[in-house]
């Protein structure tokens, strides 16, 4: 992805946008990974 950026604002708009998308994906994927991790654990009820 070799864009040419003519201003800092344009550079940061592009990089931060991609970062926000990655973070959104991580917010979904990491809990799914946690569910995978703890899938075989004994269910502990505290109530």
């Amino acid at each position, binding site marked *: *992805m*070799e*864009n040419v950026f003519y201003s800092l604002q344009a*550079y940061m708009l*592009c*990089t*931060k946008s*991609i*970062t926000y998308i*990655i*973070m959104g994906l*991580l917010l979904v*994927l*990491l809990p799914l*990974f*946690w569910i*995978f*991790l*703890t*899938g*075989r654990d004994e269910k502990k009820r505290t109530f």
Partner: protein
Amino acid sequence: MSEETSQKDKTLFTPFNVVTGIIILVGLVLTVLRFTGGLGAVTNLDDNNPWGIWIGFDLLCGVALAAGGYTTSAACYIFGLKRFHSAVRPAILTAFLGYALVVFALHYDVGRPWRLPYPVFWSPGTTSLLYEVGLCVFLYLSVLAIEFSPAALEWLGLAKIRNIIVRLTLVLTIFGVILSTLHQSSLGALFLVAPSKLHPLWYSSYLAVYFFISSIFAGLSMVIFEGTLAHKFLHDKMDDTHRKESPGVVTAFSKAAAFVMMGYVGIKIVGVAMDNNWHYLATGWGAWFLLELVGFVALPAFLYAIAAREKSLMAARCAAVWTVLGIILNRFNISLVAFNWQLPAAERYFPSWMEIATSIFIVTVGVVVYRFIATRMPILHAHPDYQHDH
């Protein structure tokens, strides 16, 4: 009498003693060479490459892999997970010896080792990250020595002072976590001063965060790894509590390491995105970066996840070794491989055999001392007089 003597000789010349003895002898000769002939007599260091494997391996890897001390004691004493208690003393011992050997190894690398206390006591360079690393390592080594001392005091039968020090455990653990956060991250931050020398895929303003987060799973992996070695070679020194708690420690640490490693992969990708370095991934350096990130972080994280789900000790142990190799690869990449990446091949650094032998000597000293302590002091078992102390 001659039968008894020959029996004693037989016991002394075990394969372990012979191999470690040879390594230590070679190491002592190299030590004399280094301190009489200077760095040039022993190393391939030069003005372009002032830091070699004595920093890249002995210091960077040594500090990262000694992180098991703060992670295990934080889990047990701060997060209250008492089922990890049997793992604390071995982890603290590994960390104590690890940091002691880091300081020992540093003496080989610095120009005037007798001046090592100067930055702490005489001339603090408070604007320097390296000063902060030195101060934190000095303080944390002291904390670890105090945290380790109850085991030695129990062995020596000094109950009164042992009981006083045990009451300091929580304070020491908190102080240890603070100091570890500081120096683990600062070691990464050292490389912020050389943006043109470190390849863009490894250089990031988040280097400090990367080093700290990776130290967490490095420490967890080392606890699993040295637990594996202890089970294999020091099984008779372990008591029932250790043997019973050990699989639970491995499973729980695998789960924690898997999650932290996946988070780490995520923030590494964010780092590439923030600096717009995607185009580097299509280069040879990119392939090497992906090998490190996918092959030595993401894949062992999956293996850890499977180990945690299936409660498989074998999978966890393999993942631990794999992760430790990944940490070593990461530290080597940042300090040696991707550092000075633009220099021509003739000016790049490769360690001399004497540097490698010195590093092996230092690790061997650590293994020998660990074995000496673990076979005599209450590390892998509770002392009979303090069975119910938690």
